[in-house]
Protein backbone atom coordinates (compact mmCIF):
# COMPACT_ATOMS: atom_id res chain seq x y z
CA UNK A 1 0.00 0.00 0.00
CA UNK A 2 1.46 3.34 -1.00
CA UNK A 3 0.93 6.11 1.53
CA UNK A 4 0.10 9.52 0.14
CA UNK A 5 1.20 12.16 2.62
CA UNK A 6 0.05 15.72 3.09
CA UNK A 7 2.79 18.35 3.33
CA UNK A 8 5.13 17.69 6.20
CA UNK A 9 4.73 19.83 9.29
CA UNK A 10 6.67 23.06 8.60
CA UNK A 11 9.68 23.81 10.76
CA UNK A 12 8.92 26.63 13.25
CA UNK A 13 10.36 29.98 12.19
CA UNK A 14 13.26 31.61 13.94
CA UNK A 15 16.67 30.16 14.79
CA UNK A 16 17.80 26.94 13.08
CA UNK A 17 17.80 23.80 15.21
CA UNK A 18 20.80 23.10 17.40
CA UNK A 19 23.34 20.69 15.88
CA UNK A 20 22.05 17.14 16.12
CA UNK A 21 23.97 14.20 17.52
CA UNK A 22 24.69 12.71 14.08
CA UNK A 23 26.02 16.06 12.90
CA UNK A 24 28.27 16.40 15.94
CA UNK A 25 29.53 12.86 15.44
CA UNK A 26 30.15 13.42 11.75
CA UNK A 27 32.03 16.65 12.45
CA UNK A 28 34.13 14.97 15.10
CA UNK A 29 34.93 12.08 12.78
CA UNK A 30 35.94 14.37 9.93
CA UNK A 31 38.13 16.42 12.24
CA UNK A 32 39.72 13.28 13.60
CA UNK A 33 40.48 12.04 10.09
CA UNK A 34 42.14 15.30 9.09
CA UNK A 35 44.12 15.35 12.30
CA UNK A 36 45.12 11.74 11.80
CA UNK A 37 46.45 12.41 8.34
CA UNK A 38 48.39 15.38 9.65
CA UNK A 39 49.90 13.33 12.47
CA UNK A 40 50.78 10.54 10.03
CA UNK A 41 52.61 12.97 7.76
CA UNK A 42 54.44 14.52 10.69
CA UNK A 43 55.67 11.10 11.72
CA UNK A 44 56.62 9.62 8.35
CA UNK A 45 57.51 12.75 6.42
CA UNK A 46 55.93 13.97 3.22
CA UNK A 47 54.30 11.42 0.96
CA UNK A 48 56.51 10.35 -1.91
CA UNK A 49 54.43 9.64 -4.96
CA UNK A 50 55.80 8.92 -8.38
CA UNK A 51 59.28 7.91 -7.29
CA UNK A 52 61.76 5.71 -9.09
CA UNK A 53 63.41 5.63 -12.46
CA UNK A 54 60.85 3.68 -14.45
CA UNK A 55 58.71 5.62 -16.87
CA UNK A 56 55.18 5.03 -18.04
CA UNK A 57 54.06 4.89 -21.64
CA UNK A 58 52.37 8.27 -22.25
CA UNK A 59 49.64 6.90 -24.55
CA UNK A 60 48.77 4.10 -22.15
CA UNK A 61 48.79 6.56 -19.28
CA UNK A 62 46.51 8.95 -21.16
CA UNK A 63 44.03 6.25 -22.07
CA UNK A 64 43.81 4.81 -18.56
CA UNK A 65 43.44 8.32 -17.11
CA UNK A 66 40.56 8.98 -19.47
CA UNK A 67 39.09 5.58 -18.61
CA UNK A 68 39.34 6.42 -14.91
CA UNK A 69 37.38 9.61 -15.55
CA UNK A 70 34.75 7.59 -17.43
CA UNK A 71 34.42 5.18 -14.53
CA UNK A 72 34.15 8.12 -12.12
CA UNK A 73 31.27 9.40 -14.27
CA UNK A 74 29.45 6.19 -13.29
CA UNK A 75 28.90 7.83 -9.90
CA UNK A 76 26.68 10.33 -11.71
CA UNK A 77 25.08 7.45 -13.56
CA UNK A 78 24.31 5.58 -10.36
CA UNK A 79 22.94 8.77 -8.84
CA UNK A 80 20.60 9.51 -11.72
CA UNK A 81 19.53 5.86 -11.94
CA UNK A 82 18.71 5.72 -8.24
CA UNK A 83 17.02 9.11 -7.95
CA UNK A 84 14.82 8.25 -10.91
CA UNK A 85 13.61 5.04 -9.30
CA UNK A 86 13.30 6.36 -5.73
CA UNK A 87 10.24 8.14 -4.42
CA UNK A 88 10.31 11.96 -4.69
CA UNK A 89 10.61 12.73 -1.00
CA UNK A 90 13.76 10.63 -0.76
CA UNK A 91 15.52 12.08 -3.80
CA UNK A 92 17.77 14.52 -1.89
CA UNK A 93 19.02 11.85 0.51
CA UNK A 94 19.60 9.35 -2.31
CA UNK A 95 21.59 11.89 -4.28
CA UNK A 96 23.61 12.94 -1.26
CA UNK A 97 24.47 9.37 -0.33
CA UNK A 98 25.95 8.87 -3.77
CA UNK A 99 28.34 11.78 -3.45
CA UNK A 100 29.19 11.13 0.19
CA UNK A 101 30.08 7.50 -0.47
CA UNK A 102 32.48 8.72 -3.17
CA UNK A 103 34.13 10.91 -0.54
CA UNK A 104 34.27 7.97 1.87
CA UNK A 105 35.74 5.74 -0.85
CA UNK A 106 38.35 8.32 -1.76
CA UNK A 107 39.59 8.73 1.78
CA UNK A 108 39.39 5.07 2.73
CA UNK A 109 41.07 3.75 -0.40
CA UNK A 110 43.73 6.46 -0.47
CA UNK A 111 44.72 6.11 3.19
CA UNK A 112 44.48 2.34 3.65
CA UNK A 113 42.60 0.37 1.00
CA UNK A 114 45.10 0.74 -1.84
CA UNK A 115 47.91 -0.39 0.44
CA UNK A 116 46.02 -3.52 1.51
CA UNK A 117 45.21 -4.28 -2.11
CA UNK A 118 48.43 -3.49 -3.95
CA UNK A 119 51.17 -2.85 -1.42
CA UNK A 120 54.10 -5.17 -0.91
CA UNK A 121 53.12 -7.99 1.37
CA UNK A 122 51.91 -11.52 0.94
CA UNK A 123 49.20 -13.34 -0.96
CA UNK A 124 46.54 -12.13 1.47
CA UNK A 125 47.26 -8.49 2.23
CA UNK A 126 49.66 -5.66 1.43
CA UNK A 127 51.36 -3.52 4.04
CA UNK A 128 53.01 -0.58 2.40
CA UNK A 129 51.90 2.33 0.17
CA UNK A 130 49.61 3.67 2.92
CA UNK A 131 48.49 7.13 1.77
CA UNK A 132 50.36 6.16 -1.42
CA UNK A 133 53.68 6.88 0.27
CA UNK A 134 56.44 5.48 -1.91
CA UNK A 135 54.17 4.86 -4.89
CA UNK A 136 56.53 4.20 -7.81
CA UNK A 137 56.09 5.71 -11.23
CA UNK A 138 55.57 2.30 -12.72
CA UNK A 139 56.42 -1.30 -11.92
CA UNK A 140 54.90 -4.15 -13.89
CA UNK A 141 52.58 -1.89 -15.74
CA UNK A 142 52.89 0.59 -18.56
CA UNK A 143 50.87 3.15 -16.65
CA UNK A 144 52.18 5.43 -13.94
CA UNK A 145 51.51 4.85 -10.27
CA UNK A 146 49.16 7.81 -9.83
CA UNK A 147 47.20 6.81 -12.93
CA UNK A 148 46.92 3.26 -11.68
CA UNK A 149 45.69 4.55 -8.33
CA UNK A 150 42.94 6.79 -9.70
CA UNK A 151 41.76 4.01 -11.97
CA UNK A 152 41.56 1.59 -9.05
CA UNK A 153 39.95 4.28 -6.88
CA UNK A 154 37.16 4.63 -9.42
CA UNK A 155 36.60 0.88 -9.18
CA UNK A 156 36.53 0.97 -5.38
CA UNK A 157 34.00 3.79 -5.55
CA UNK A 158 31.82 1.72 -7.86
CA UNK A 159 31.80 -1.26 -5.50
CA UNK A 160 30.82 0.99 -2.60
CA UNK A 161 28.08 2.93 -4.33
CA UNK A 162 26.34 -0.26 -5.46
CA UNK A 163 25.29 -0.79 -1.86
CA UNK A 164 23.39 2.50 -1.65
CA UNK A 165 20.95 1.39 -4.32
CA UNK A 166 19.60 -1.40 -2.15
CA UNK A 167 19.41 0.37 1.18
CA UNK A 168 17.81 3.66 0.13
CA UNK A 169 14.80 5.26 1.82
CA UNK A 170 15.16 3.62 5.21
CA UNK A 171 18.84 3.50 6.24
CA UNK A 172 20.37 6.16 8.46
CA UNK A 173 22.86 8.43 6.79
CA UNK A 174 25.61 7.95 9.34
CA UNK A 175 25.43 4.16 9.30
CA UNK A 176 25.65 4.17 5.52
CA UNK A 177 28.68 6.49 5.61
CA UNK A 178 30.44 4.22 8.10
CA UNK A 179 29.61 1.15 6.02
CA UNK A 180 31.14 2.85 2.98
CA UNK A 181 34.39 3.40 4.84
CA UNK A 182 34.52 -0.22 6.03
CA UNK A 183 33.92 -1.49 2.50
CA UNK A 184 36.69 0.76 1.19
CA UNK A 185 39.18 -0.21 3.88
CA UNK A 186 38.46 -3.89 4.52
CA UNK A 187 35.92 -5.72 2.39
CA UNK A 188 36.81 -4.55 -1.11
CA UNK A 189 40.60 -4.17 -0.98
CA UNK A 190 41.35 -7.41 0.83
CA UNK A 191 39.32 -9.49 -1.59
CA UNK A 192 40.83 -7.40 -4.36
CA UNK A 193 44.28 -8.37 -3.11
CA UNK A 194 43.42 -12.06 -3.42
CA UNK A 195 42.17 -11.67 -6.99
CA UNK A 196 44.19 -8.77 -8.43
CA UNK A 197 47.28 -8.35 -6.26
CA UNK A 198 49.69 -8.80 -9.16
CA UNK A 199 48.11 -6.12 -11.34
CA UNK A 200 50.56 -3.51 -10.22
CA UNK A 201 53.45 -5.61 -8.92
CA UNK A 202 53.88 -9.18 -10.13
CA UNK A 203 55.53 -10.01 -6.81
CA UNK A 204 52.27 -9.30 -4.96
CA UNK A 205 50.19 -12.03 -6.54
CA UNK A 206 47.09 -12.91 -4.56
CA UNK A 207 46.28 -16.46 -3.55
CA UNK A 208 43.12 -16.66 -5.64
CA UNK A 209 44.77 -15.49 -8.81
CA UNK A 210 47.64 -17.91 -8.14
CA UNK A 211 45.03 -20.67 -8.29
CA UNK A 212 43.98 -19.47 -11.74
CA UNK A 213 41.00 -17.26 -10.87
CA UNK A 214 40.36 -14.68 -13.63
CA UNK A 215 38.19 -11.59 -13.36
CA UNK A 216 39.31 -9.16 -16.03
CA UNK A 217 37.54 -6.00 -14.89
CA UNK A 218 35.66 -6.98 -11.77
CA UNK A 219 32.42 -8.92 -12.25
CA UNK A 220 33.16 -10.43 -8.86
CA UNK A 221 35.87 -8.16 -7.45
CA UNK A 222 33.77 -5.02 -7.87
CA UNK A 223 30.17 -5.86 -8.66
CA UNK A 224 29.55 -8.99 -6.62
CA UNK A 225 31.37 -7.51 -3.62
CA UNK A 226 29.00 -4.55 -3.65
CA UNK A 227 25.96 -6.73 -4.21
CA UNK A 228 26.62 -9.24 -1.43
CA UNK A 229 27.20 -6.43 1.07
CA UNK A 230 23.90 -5.00 -0.11
CA UNK A 231 22.14 -8.35 0.29
CA UNK A 232 23.19 -8.67 3.92
CA UNK A 233 22.22 -5.07 4.49
CA UNK A 234 18.70 -5.35 3.10
CA UNK A 235 18.03 -8.51 5.09
CA UNK A 236 19.12 -6.89 8.34
CA UNK A 237 17.55 -3.46 7.79
CA UNK A 238 14.27 -4.90 6.50
CA UNK A 239 11.88 -3.78 3.77
CA UNK A 240 10.57 -0.26 3.32
CA UNK A 241 7.27 0.61 4.94
CA UNK A 242 4.40 -0.53 2.81
CA UNK A 243 6.60 -2.38 0.32
CA UNK A 244 5.06 -5.69 1.29
CA UNK A 245 1.75 -6.45 2.94
CA UNK A 246 1.75 -8.37 6.18
CA UNK A 247 1.24 -11.57 4.20
CA UNK A 248 4.24 -10.82 1.97
CA UNK A 249 2.32 -9.60 -1.08
CA UNK A 250 4.55 -7.30 -3.08
CA UNK A 251 3.47 -3.65 -3.42
CA UNK A 252 6.03 -2.05 -5.77
CA UNK A 253 6.48 1.68 -5.51
CA UNK A 254 6.18 3.66 -8.74
CA UNK A 255 9.41 5.38 -9.82
CA UNK A 256 9.41 9.15 -9.86
CA UNK A 257 11.25 9.79 -13.10
CA UNK A 258 12.04 7.00 -15.52
CA UNK A 259 13.68 9.43 -17.92
CA UNK A 260 16.26 10.16 -15.26
CA UNK A 261 16.75 6.44 -14.72
CA UNK A 262 17.38 5.88 -18.42
CA UNK A 263 19.82 8.78 -18.45
CA UNK A 264 21.60 7.16 -15.53
CA UNK A 265 21.69 3.86 -17.38
CA UNK A 266 23.26 5.48 -20.44
CA UNK A 267 25.86 7.24 -18.31
CA UNK A 268 26.68 3.90 -16.67
CA UNK A 269 26.91 2.30 -20.10
CA UNK A 270 29.30 5.03 -21.24
CA UNK A 271 31.33 4.50 -18.08
CA UNK A 272 31.49 0.79 -18.79
CA UNK A 273 33.42 1.45 -21.97
CA UNK A 274 36.11 2.93 -19.73
CA UNK A 275 35.56 0.34 -16.99
CA UNK A 276 36.33 -2.57 -19.30
CA UNK A 277 38.38 -0.80 -21.95
CA UNK A 278 40.65 0.77 -19.35
CA UNK A 279 41.21 -2.53 -17.57
CA UNK A 280 43.61 -3.49 -20.35
CA UNK A 281 45.91 -0.96 -18.62
CA UNK A 282 47.24 -0.09 -22.05
CA UNK A 283 45.94 1.39 -25.27
CA UNK A 284 46.37 -1.37 -27.82
CA UNK A 285 44.38 -3.26 -30.43
CA UNK A 286 42.49 -5.10 -27.70
CA UNK A 287 40.74 -2.01 -26.37
CA UNK A 288 38.24 -1.47 -29.21
CA UNK A 289 37.42 -5.20 -29.19
CA UNK A 290 36.85 -5.11 -25.42
CA UNK A 291 34.48 -2.17 -25.81
CA UNK A 292 32.70 -3.94 -28.68
CA UNK A 293 31.96 -7.11 -26.70
CA UNK A 294 30.94 -5.03 -23.68
CA UNK A 295 28.33 -3.25 -25.74
CA UNK A 296 27.10 -6.47 -27.36
CA UNK A 297 26.53 -8.13 -23.98
CA UNK A 298 24.56 -5.14 -22.74
CA UNK A 299 22.22 -5.01 -25.72
CA UNK A 300 21.77 -8.78 -25.73
CA UNK A 301 20.77 -8.74 -22.07
CA UNK A 302 18.36 -5.87 -22.68
CA UNK A 303 16.75 -7.92 -25.43
CA UNK A 304 16.38 -11.19 -23.50
CA UNK A 305 15.25 -9.43 -20.32
CA UNK A 306 12.68 -7.39 -22.19
CA UNK A 307 11.25 -10.27 -24.21
CA UNK A 308 11.03 -12.47 -21.13
CA UNK A 309 9.36 -9.76 -19.04
CA UNK A 310 6.88 -8.91 -21.78
CA UNK A 311 6.07 -12.53 -22.56
CA UNK A 312 5.63 -13.71 -18.99
CA UNK A 313 4.21 -10.49 -17.56
CA UNK A 314 5.69 -11.66 -14.28
CA UNK A 315 7.20 -8.28 -13.59
CA UNK A 316 5.13 -5.29 -12.47
CA UNK A 317 7.26 -3.04 -14.64
CA UNK A 318 8.68 -4.21 -17.95
CA UNK A 319 10.44 -0.89 -18.25
CA UNK A 320 12.55 -1.08 -15.11
CA UNK A 321 13.11 -4.80 -15.68
CA UNK A 322 14.60 -4.10 -19.09
CA UNK A 323 16.91 -1.45 -17.67
CA UNK A 324 18.09 -3.81 -14.96
CA UNK A 325 18.55 -6.57 -17.50
CA UNK A 326 20.79 -4.44 -19.70
CA UNK A 327 23.00 -3.51 -16.76
CA UNK A 328 23.24 -7.18 -15.80
CA UNK A 329 24.65 -7.96 -19.22
CA UNK A 330 27.27 -5.27 -18.80
CA UNK A 331 28.22 -6.64 -15.39
CA UNK A 332 28.38 -10.20 -16.67
CA UNK A 333 30.73 -9.55 -19.60
CA UNK A 334 33.08 -7.57 -17.37
CA UNK A 335 34.96 -10.68 -16.19
CA UNK A 336 35.70 -12.04 -19.66
CA UNK A 337 35.79 -8.98 -21.90
CA UNK A 338 39.48 -9.48 -22.60
CA UNK A 339 39.04 -13.00 -24.00
CA UNK A 340 35.45 -13.53 -25.14
CA UNK A 341 34.54 -13.18 -28.81
CA UNK A 342 31.46 -11.21 -30.02
CA UNK A 343 29.17 -14.24 -30.24
CA UNK A 344 30.27 -15.33 -26.81
CA UNK A 345 29.51 -11.88 -25.47
CA UNK A 346 26.02 -12.03 -26.95
CA UNK A 347 25.47 -15.42 -25.32
CA UNK A 348 26.66 -14.11 -21.98
CA UNK A 349 24.32 -11.16 -22.31
CA UNK A 350 21.28 -13.19 -23.35
CA UNK A 351 21.63 -15.47 -20.34
CA UNK A 352 22.39 -12.55 -18.03
CA UNK A 353 19.14 -10.84 -18.97
CA UNK A 354 17.11 -13.93 -18.12
CA UNK A 355 18.98 -14.50 -14.87
CA UNK A 356 18.29 -10.92 -13.88
CA UNK A 357 14.54 -11.38 -14.22
CA UNK A 358 14.52 -14.67 -12.33
CA UNK A 359 16.65 -13.21 -9.53
CA UNK A 360 14.48 -10.11 -9.19
CA UNK A 361 11.33 -12.21 -8.95
CA UNK A 362 12.99 -14.51 -6.41
CA UNK A 363 13.88 -11.63 -4.14
CA UNK A 364 10.25 -10.49 -4.18
CA UNK A 365 9.03 -13.96 -3.28
CA UNK A 366 11.51 -14.03 -0.40
CA UNK A 367 10.12 -10.66 0.81
CA UNK A 368 13.50 -9.02 0.39
CA UNK A 369 13.29 -5.36 -0.54
CA UNK A 370 16.21 -4.59 -2.82
CA UNK A 371 15.01 -1.06 -3.45
CA UNK A 372 16.69 -0.38 -6.77
CA UNK A 373 17.56 -3.83 -7.99
CA UNK A 374 21.26 -3.88 -7.23
CA UNK A 375 21.43 -7.52 -6.18
CA UNK A 376 20.16 -9.16 -9.38
CA UNK A 377 22.26 -6.80 -11.51
CA UNK A 378 25.55 -6.82 -9.68
CA UNK A 379 25.35 -10.01 -7.61
CA UNK A 380 23.76 -12.50 -9.95
CA UNK A 381 25.23 -10.79 -13.02
CA UNK A 382 28.65 -10.81 -11.42
CA UNK A 383 28.38 -14.47 -10.45
CA UNK A 384 27.26 -15.56 -13.91
CA UNK A 385 29.87 -13.44 -15.64
CA UNK A 386 32.66 -14.87 -13.51
CA UNK A 387 31.60 -18.45 -14.18
CA UNK A 388 31.19 -17.61 -17.85
CA UNK A 389 34.93 -17.03 -18.08
CA UNK A 390 35.40 -20.76 -17.67
CA UNK A 391 32.84 -21.47 -20.38
CA UNK A 392 33.82 -18.94 -23.01
CA UNK A 393 37.59 -18.57 -22.63
CA UNK A 394 39.13 -19.73 -25.92
CA UNK A 395 41.10 -22.98 -26.00
CA UNK A 396 44.35 -21.34 -27.20
CA UNK A 397 44.43 -19.18 -24.09
CA UNK A 398 43.81 -22.18 -21.87
CA UNK A 399 46.64 -24.00 -23.65
CA UNK A 400 48.90 -21.02 -23.05
CA UNK A 401 47.99 -21.08 -19.38
CA UNK A 402 48.49 -24.83 -19.19
CA UNK A 403 45.03 -25.29 -17.81
CA UNK A 404 42.02 -27.41 -18.69
CA UNK A 405 38.55 -25.92 -19.04
CA UNK A 406 37.46 -27.79 -15.93
CA UNK A 407 40.41 -26.34 -14.03
CA UNK A 408 39.37 -22.86 -15.11
CA UNK A 409 35.74 -23.39 -14.22
CA UNK A 410 36.75 -24.71 -10.82
CA UNK A 411 38.93 -21.68 -10.19
CA UNK A 412 36.07 -19.38 -11.17
CA UNK A 413 33.63 -21.20 -8.91
CA UNK A 414 36.11 -21.00 -6.05
CA UNK A 415 36.47 -17.27 -6.52
CA UNK A 416 32.72 -16.76 -6.54
CA UNK A 417 32.33 -18.81 -3.37
CA UNK A 418 35.20 -17.10 -1.54
CA UNK A 419 33.74 -13.71 -2.43
CA UNK A 420 30.34 -14.73 -1.08
CA UNK A 421 31.70 -16.03 2.20
CA UNK A 422 34.18 -13.21 2.81
CA UNK A 423 31.91 -10.37 1.80
CA UNK A 424 28.76 -11.56 3.50
CA UNK A 425 30.60 -12.56 6.65
CA UNK A 426 32.23 -9.17 7.16
CA UNK A 427 29.06 -7.36 6.10
CA UNK A 428 27.01 -9.27 8.65
CA UNK A 429 29.33 -8.22 11.47
CA UNK A 430 29.34 -4.65 10.14
CA UNK A 431 25.58 -4.20 9.85
CA UNK A 432 24.79 -6.00 13.08
CA UNK A 433 27.28 -3.78 14.91
CA UNK A 434 25.76 -0.66 13.37
CA UNK A 435 22.26 -1.88 14.23
CA UNK A 436 23.16 -2.40 17.87
CA UNK A 437 25.20 0.79 18.34
CA UNK A 438 24.15 3.85 16.37
CA UNK A 439 21.11 2.26 14.73
CA UNK A 440 20.65 1.24 11.15
CA UNK A 441 17.11 2.20 10.35
CA UNK A 442 15.25 5.51 10.48
CA UNK A 443 11.87 5.85 12.15
CA UNK A 444 8.62 5.21 10.27
CA UNK A 445 7.81 8.90 10.20
CA UNK A 446 11.18 9.85 8.80
CA UNK A 447 10.87 7.13 6.20
CA UNK A 448 7.41 8.24 5.14
CA UNK A 449 8.16 11.95 5.17
CA UNK A 450 11.60 11.72 3.59
CA UNK A 451 15.07 11.41 5.00
CA UNK A 452 16.69 14.52 6.33
CA UNK A 453 20.40 14.07 6.65
CA UNK A 454 21.14 15.89 9.86
CA UNK A 455 17.85 16.12 11.66
CA UNK A 456 17.01 14.51 14.93
CA UNK A 457 14.41 11.86 14.58
CA UNK A 458 11.33 12.92 16.55
CA UNK A 459 9.24 9.78 16.36
CA UNK A 460 8.77 7.18 18.99
CA UNK A 461 6.54 4.15 19.10
CA UNK A 462 3.26 4.62 20.88
CA UNK A 463 3.97 4.66 24.59
CA UNK A 464 1.02 3.23 26.48
CA UNK A 465 2.50 3.83 29.90
CA UNK A 466 0.01 6.58 30.69
CA UNK A 467 -2.95 4.27 30.04
CA UNK A 468 -3.77 1.41 32.37
CA UNK A 469 -4.66 -1.97 30.89
CA UNK A 470 -8.39 -1.73 31.57
CA UNK A 471 -8.68 1.63 29.87
CA UNK A 472 -6.58 0.39 26.94
CA UNK A 473 -8.92 -2.57 26.49
CA UNK A 474 -11.87 -0.21 26.59
CA UNK A 475 -10.36 2.01 23.92
CA UNK A 476 -9.66 -1.02 21.75
CA UNK A 477 -13.09 -2.60 22.03
Amino acid at each position, binding site marked *: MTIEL*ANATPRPGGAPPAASRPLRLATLTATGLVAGVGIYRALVGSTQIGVGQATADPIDDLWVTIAAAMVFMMQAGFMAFEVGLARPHHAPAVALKNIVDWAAASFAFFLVGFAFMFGSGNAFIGWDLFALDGLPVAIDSTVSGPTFFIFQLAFAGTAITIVSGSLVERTTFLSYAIASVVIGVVIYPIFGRWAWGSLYDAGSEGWLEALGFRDFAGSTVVHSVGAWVALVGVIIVGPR*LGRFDLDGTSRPFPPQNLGLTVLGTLILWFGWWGFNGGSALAFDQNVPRIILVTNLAGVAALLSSGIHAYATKASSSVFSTVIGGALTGLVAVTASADVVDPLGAISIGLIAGLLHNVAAESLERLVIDDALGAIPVHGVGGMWGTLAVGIFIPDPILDELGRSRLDQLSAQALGVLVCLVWTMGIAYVLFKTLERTIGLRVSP*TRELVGLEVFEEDPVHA*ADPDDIDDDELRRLLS
Partner: protein
Amino acid sequence: MAIDSVAIKMAAGYNVMRPADWQALAPTERFDLIKAQRVVFLRDGESVPVRTALEWLAAHVPVHGQPT
Protein backbone atom coordinates in the same frame (compact mmCIF):
# COMPACT_ATOMS: atom_id res chain seq x y z
CA MET B 1 -7.53 15.39 12.86
CA ALA B 2 -7.33 12.00 11.16
CA ILE B 3 -5.07 9.02 11.60
CA ASP B 4 -3.96 8.15 8.08
CA SER B 5 -1.78 5.09 8.74
CA VAL B 6 -0.60 2.68 11.41
CA ALA B 7 2.96 1.35 11.31
CA ILE B 8 3.76 -1.96 12.96
CA LYS B 9 7.29 -2.95 13.90
CA MET B 10 7.95 -6.36 12.37
CA ALA B 11 10.77 -8.80 12.99
CA ALA B 12 12.70 -6.97 10.28
CA GLY B 13 11.70 -3.38 9.72
CA TYR B 14 8.20 -1.97 9.77
CA ASN B 15 5.07 -2.42 7.79
CA VAL B 16 2.17 -0.06 7.49
CA MET B 17 -1.57 -0.55 7.26
CA ARG B 18 -4.66 1.55 6.82
CA PRO B 19 -6.68 2.46 9.94
CA ALA B 20 -9.48 0.16 8.81
CA ASP B 21 -7.06 -2.75 8.58
CA TRP B 22 -5.78 -1.98 12.08
CA GLN B 23 -9.29 -1.89 13.45
CA ALA B 24 -9.97 -5.23 11.81
CA LEU B 25 -7.33 -6.92 13.96
CA ALA B 26 -8.62 -8.71 17.03
CA PRO B 27 -8.71 -6.56 20.18
CA THR B 28 -6.28 -8.84 21.97
CA GLU B 29 -3.85 -8.63 19.06
CA ARG B 30 -4.04 -4.83 19.04
CA PHE B 31 -3.64 -4.78 22.83
CA ASP B 32 -0.53 -6.96 22.70
CA LEU B 33 1.06 -4.92 19.90
CA ILE B 34 0.53 -1.65 21.75
CA LYS B 35 1.78 -3.01 25.05
CA ALA B 36 4.90 -4.28 23.25
CA GLN B 37 5.42 -0.75 21.86
CA ARG B 38 5.40 -2.04 18.28
CA VAL B 39 2.81 0.43 16.98
CA VAL B 40 3.15 3.95 15.60
CA PHE B 41 0.00 5.90 14.73
CA LEU B 42 0.69 8.42 12.01
CA ARG B 43 -1.01 11.60 10.84
CA ASP B 44 0.55 13.69 8.07
CA GLY B 45 3.80 11.89 8.69
CA GLU B 46 3.91 12.70 12.40
CA SER B 47 3.34 10.27 15.23
CA VAL B 48 0.21 10.66 17.34
CA PRO B 49 -0.02 9.79 21.03
CA VAL B 50 -1.71 6.46 21.58
CA ARG B 51 -4.62 7.72 23.63
CA THR B 52 -5.45 10.41 21.06
CA ALA B 53 -5.13 7.93 18.20
CA LEU B 54 -7.29 5.26 19.79
CA GLU B 55 -10.00 7.75 20.71
CA TRP B 56 -10.10 9.05 17.16
CA LEU B 57 -10.14 5.54 15.68
CA ALA B 58 -12.93 4.46 18.03
CA ALA B 59 -15.01 7.46 16.94
CA HIS B 60 -14.35 7.32 13.20
CA VAL B 61 -13.33 3.84 12.06
CA PRO B 62 -15.65 0.91 12.68
CA VAL B 63 -14.36 -2.23 14.34
CA HIS B 64 -15.37 -5.56 12.74
CA GLY B 65 -17.97 -3.84 10.62
CA GLN B 66 -19.74 -2.21 13.57
CA PRO B 67 -21.06 1.28 12.86
CA THR B 68 -19.45 4.20 14.75
